[in-house]
């Protein structure tokens, strides 16, 4: 394997990453100089926007390169995915304004985003592992930042242990695969899927399990509700949307070109289905919005992994569209959530009672988010679900498509219950409730625009992926 690094490609292909790195360095320098921590947020915003714009620009060129042979490569599709996920980080940053006043949030988020960018580009397991760790480690600290709340330490610890377990499983899988094939390239995974060699098969199972752990697929989901509940809202929003999306993109990269077949299909068929059903059922009795979103995200992880049943060809598109449609409405709901000095009260369903009468705009936005998550048309969640299940049917798994759809039906009830709480109950505002801050509202507006674009012009969005 010849390793040649083309300097110009290295500069251009990693332009999004470079902008993030620049942002991190700048924020650190400013922190060292003791310059106002408020500007850290603006620097981070600038870095994320520049990085996202760079990714979109490159993808439209269209640009493809492999600056580090066998380690890191970009294609227009990968750049588009990166750009889209990075754009989703903008509302997260805007939301954070109300929760965090110091620069640490910006640094940690930028670092995590750097890891996120590595994942879809990883050509070797080494880079992928680096990406996964870089994605997760700043999040431990981010969860812990909600230190006013007693659960935050527990949440962070749970996430740490889970992530450690996932990493160990991943590494074990990689080493077995290396032992069997003598290659660290992620391309061997596709071939290994159909292999009947016991060591290879174990490796594949371990790798799959580590992805399931990270994406909170049943039965590896138990950490998600606790962790989501303990974190502050911007962090929960980040974990529920971007980190999940990043893991799925890593999975797309792993499965690249491989049509799922062979004995491991069952694993990929059954666990996501169980996830859909269990996530939706367990969400019904939750009293905290964040826990509900956690269970809902478990169900959505199920739909996302359904995307792998279809042909390899449209997989990136289906998964990316789903991640976008799912994330943008989740962020919308979190962004418009009214402020409350007690973060725990902020999103309990009791506190949201009758919100429509106090803040019609916020209630309407949360309702749109819930309907989209439920997969009801005309919201983007429907088109996303349609695309996934269309691919599943096209691949010949009709029964599983029907089961998955019926599973998704189970979820409608609790999404509607949120709307019922918002619109059909009388409730009094908690004394400390305020409207969402200006920047959070800007985040909401951005997400609303994104939601509308995906709802009205799904064809246009798909054509670009």
């Amino acid at each position: 394997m010849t390793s040649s690094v083309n300097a110009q490609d290295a500069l251009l292909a990693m332009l999004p990453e470079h902008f993030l790195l620049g942002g991190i360095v700048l924020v650190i320098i400013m922190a060292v100089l003791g310059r106002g921590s408020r500007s850290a947020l603006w620097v981070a915003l600038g870095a994320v926007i520049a990085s996202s714009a760079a990714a979109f620009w490159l993808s439209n060129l269209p640009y493809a390169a492999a600056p580090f042979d066998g380690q890191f490569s970009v294609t227009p599709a990968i750049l588009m995915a990166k750009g889209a996920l990075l754009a989703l980080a903008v509302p997260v940053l805007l939301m954070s304004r109300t929760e965090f006043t110091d620069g640490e949030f910006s640094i940690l988020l930028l670092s995590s985003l750097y890891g996120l960018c590595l994942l879809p580009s990883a050509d070797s397991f080494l880079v992928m592992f680096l990406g996964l760790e870089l994605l997760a480690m700043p999040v431990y600290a981010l969860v812990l930042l909600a230190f006013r709340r007693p659960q935050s330490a527990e949440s962070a610890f749970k996430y740490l242990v889970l992530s450690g377990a996932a990493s160990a499983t991943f590494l074990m899988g990689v080493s077995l695969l290396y032992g069997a094939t003598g290659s660290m390239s992620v391309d061997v995974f596709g071939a290994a899927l159909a292999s009947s060699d016991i060591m290879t098969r174990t490796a594949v199972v371990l790798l799959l399990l580590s992805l399931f752990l990270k994406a909170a697929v049943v039965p590896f989901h138990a950490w998600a509700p606790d962790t989501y509940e303990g974190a502050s809202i911007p962090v929960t929003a980040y974990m529920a949307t971007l980190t999940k999306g990043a893991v799925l993109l890593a999975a797309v990269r792993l499965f690249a070109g491989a049509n799922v077949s062979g004995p491991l299909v069952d694993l990929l068929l059954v666990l996501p289905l169980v996830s859909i059903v269990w996530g939706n059922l367990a969400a019904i009795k939750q009293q905290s919005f964040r826990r509900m979103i956690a269970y809902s995200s478990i169900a959505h992880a199920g739909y996302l992994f359904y995307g792998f049943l279809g042909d390899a060809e449209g997989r990136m598109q289906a998964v990316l569209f789903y991640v976008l449609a799912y994330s943008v409405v989740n962020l919308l709901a979190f962004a418009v959530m009214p402020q409350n000095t007690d973060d725990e009260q902020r999103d309990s369903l009791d506190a949201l009672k009758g919100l429509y009468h106090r803040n019609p705009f916020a209630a309407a936005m949360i309702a749109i988010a819930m309907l989209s998550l439920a997969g009801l048309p005309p919201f983007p969640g429907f088109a996303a679900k349609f695309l996934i299940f269309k691919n599943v049917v096209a691949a010949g798994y009709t029964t599983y498509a029907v089961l998955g759809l019926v599973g998704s039906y189970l979820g409608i009830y609790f999404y509607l219950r949120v709307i019922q709480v918002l619109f059909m109950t009388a409730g009094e505002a908690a004394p400390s409730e305020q409207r969402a801050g200006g920047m959070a509202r800007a985040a909401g507006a951005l997400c609303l625009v994104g939601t509308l674009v995906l709802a009205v012009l799904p064809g246009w969005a798909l054509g670009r992926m």
Partner: protein
Amino acid sequence: MSEFTSEFTMGPMLLNLVLWLPIVGVSLVLLAARANDGLSRLIAAGVMTVQFALMTVLYLQFDATAAGLQFATQLPWIAQWGVSYLIGLDGFNILLVLLTAFLGPIVVLGAWTSIKKDVPLFHVMVLLLQFAMMGAFVAQDLFLFYLFWEAMLIPMFLIIGMWGGARRVYATLKFVLYTAFGSILMLAAVIYLVQSMQQTSGVLSFAFADLYQTQLPLSVQTILLGAFALSFAIKVPMVPLHTWLPDAHVEAPTAGSVILAGVLLKMGTYGFMKLGFPLFPDAARAFTPLLTTLAVISIVYGACLALVQTDIKKIIAYSSISHLGYVMLGLLSLELVGIQGAIIQMVSHGLVAAGLFLLVGMIYDRCHTRELAAYGGLARLLPVYSVFFMIFTLASVGLPTTSGFTGEFLALMGAFTAAWPAHLDGNNLPLVLASVAVTGVVLGAMYMLRFALTFLFGAVKAPHHSPEHPLLDLSLREKSILGLLTIAVFALGLFPDGALQKTELAAKSYQSLVTTSRTPAGSAGVTP
């Protein structure tokens, strides 16, 4: 575009305008929401009236002698999936679209004084619902149809849930969960249908016209029809999938009941007529005996239940189940006269049920109870009200000269001469079913006359009525909306020819679609 006949060049633009006007109305109401409640009522009523006026123009321009779509628009939308924005009028939907447009202003006017809280939001929801219903009728692309079909749920969910009665949350959740269950299975069927069409013929399209060409083996047709039929039958509603309807009606505000009975219930029968049966004709014919039996059960069972209700809204709710049974009966007969009767009956029921629910809402606003036993002798207290009440009661019973007669008569005529599947020739079943269906007419007369007798005659009884504060008879607003409905009921009853002509070609095309076998050659060849 050559396949669409349109002499009237403004037509397509006008139809788009008719469809999208409610959205314009929604924006205006949202802009005016802060001003005052009256303004949002005015905007909604104004928009709906303009919509109806434009639709009337289209109706008059509609060429009854031309088959196929008229005033059609086709724009690519999600090109990758073969989805297009394809709308148009044909003999299937023209009367229903006209009905929807006609009931729009009536709903807003009917809710003028009874909706007092969150008035702008109410009108936003009514306008959205109008948009979705209109869209479902004019859509000629299955994806678009499904979109509108599902989108109807959300405003209705809020209308019942926010402005309904005491048990509104239970009723509205039941309504949504019932209908959404049907829709989910239909979605699976839609995906499968389009997928298999692409695989067999290489055509990727959701247009109804293309889907009508799909060849499917009988077994597949059966499963897909099952999924579609479940969804439509819940909406109709056919016994035994009807239990959400009385709850939804009883808890819904008057406007909600009017929309539900007036238009929403027709979605189910329209779905059978436009999609379910023509898409899967062989399965449809195989299931004719079962579906006809269910339709007859709905007629008789709905009527029997209406007979014993003590809540006046429930009487009309159950009578709806019975009346829509005739629609199914007519459609299943596959006789031209029956099919046309079914279409007329849909419109007629829309008008009559809307009138009855409005009347019930008006008395409820005055007396605050829906117990039949609480009332009596209203004829002496409210003479104008009682005249309208009698008119709609008689129309519901099917008195000749009213629309109810035309619809039921033609549908039953179709049932007696029905073209049943060959293996049932010489069997008594068709005749028995048709005869049982006729008893529904008698039962209908019984429960409606019992209702009218208790309500209007006998000893004077009315809550909140006293000699010092007598109940007020109908206001000018109430008289005008009921007057409009009355005119429509008689117009359809006395001069059904115009309406029948506009639907004739559609009825013929339905007949030929459902009677032409579409199982692929060589696949077991099971033709029922």
